């Protein structure tokens, strides 16, 4: 139980619960609350005035709803960012499977640009892209579709990030002797490198990025009680990350061995969209076909 018997403590607690509200709206709400509490406290005493308002979390939720009537959108499966900076949405909560399910693969939501899963900016809703391409209808894939994915298709998809991570590690180990002491880490718009760093630091960081997230994700999703849906969504998120690491490693190596052009970078960016897209679409398409086959046999029987 929080000790919120004083006006100051109550206000601080409400402020904490309102951290995702815009600063000016939060200050306005807190100033109003404080003046109300002071008037009440003069009449009935500070502790009674504070007690009458009840749980600060509940009070804060009421304020939030008054200012952001759309904040319940995530309950509808429509994600909302924690807030905006320079007009771009931000979200610094770690990427969960649910967040991947509502932002990276959410065919029911027609928006292609979703608030980014982690950090600032936007992320692609691959589910909306599949709908726009006419590959699926918005409500084709339900939670049950994941359970109908044929075992082989699911296992093959789960193996993709492991293959990509292994390829990245192998490429870096093989190419290590060919790398100069300083390798480019940033390229200008013309595709010319404009910033360099030590190869030990760069390759060390890339190796860690290839191995650590993969090891952590597989340890989590390969436990027997984890659902097919959680496995597939987490693997697609990992696929996006490992293909990026493989791409950066390939560009770094190519650059040291004769130069990487701007097209390489474009190719890497495209791959970070296409690989997770195929990792989600192909197995779910197979799951959907299994559902349809089953529906057809049932229809046939009832006729």
């Amino acid at each position, binding site marked *: 139980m929080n000790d919120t018997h004083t006006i100051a403590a109550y206000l601080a607690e409400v402020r904490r619960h309102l951290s995702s509200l815009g600063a000016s709206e939060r200050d306005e709400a807190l100033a109003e609350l404080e003046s109300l509490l002071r008037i009440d406290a003069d009449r009935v005493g500070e502790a009674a005035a504070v007690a009458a308002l009840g749980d600060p979390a509940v009070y804060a939720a009421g304020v939030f709803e008054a200012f952001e009537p759309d904040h319940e959108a995530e309950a509808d499966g429509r994600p909302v960012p924690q807030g905006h900076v320079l007009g771009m949405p931000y979200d610094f909560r770690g990427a969960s499977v649910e967040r991947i399910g509502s932002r990276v693969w959410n065919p*029911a939501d027609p928006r292609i640009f979703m608030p980014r899963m982690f950090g600032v900016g936007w992320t692609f809703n691959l589910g909306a892209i599949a709908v726009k391409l006419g590959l699926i209808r918005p409500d*084709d894939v339900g*939670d049950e579709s994941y359970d109908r994915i044929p075992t082989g298709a699911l296992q093959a998809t789960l193996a993709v990030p492991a293959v990509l991570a292994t390829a990245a590690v192998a490429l870096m180990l093989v190419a290590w002797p060919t790398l100069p002491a300083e390798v480019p880490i940033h390229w200008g718009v013309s595709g010319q490198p404009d910033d360099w760093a030590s190869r030990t630091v760069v390759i060390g960081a890339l190796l860690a990025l290839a191995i650590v997230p993969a090891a952590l994700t597989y340890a989590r999703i390969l436990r027997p009680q984890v659902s097919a849906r959680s496995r597939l969504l987490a693997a697609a998120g990992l696929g996006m990350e490992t293909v990026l690491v493989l791409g950066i490693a390939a560009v770094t190596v190519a650059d040291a061995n004769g130069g990487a052009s701007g097209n390489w970078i474009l190719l890497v960016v495209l791959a970070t969209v296409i690989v997770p897209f195929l990792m989600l679409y192909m197995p779910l398409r197979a799951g959907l076909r299994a559902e349809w086959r089953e529906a*057809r046999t049932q229809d046939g029987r009832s006729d």
Partner: protein
Amino acid sequence: MAAERDSRVSQFRKGALELVILALLDRGELYGVEIVDRLAERPGLEASAGTVYPLLSRLKKAGVVDTTWRESPVGPPRKYYRLSAAGTQELGEMSRSWRDIAVAIDGLLAEGVHDE
């Protein structure tokens, strides 16, 4: 001000959309596009596919609606939505609350008109 009023009206409608969809499905099962079309036929209740589909998937998760695949004369099978037992109960409770609120607000508005 007109834009602000539109946004308030759309908030009303959004709050009632769940009840509207349950009431539509109470008359028989429908597939996704049909639900959007039926809403479009009723002025004031129109809702975009982008609003309806996320809501349908939430209703499915909540166990209020069930789905079945059925063959379509054109193209792949269609996913039909119908009320579950819990959905029928939810519809009863929500329509009672809706009527209570509507009667109370109508009464209030009628008093206001008298006073002027």
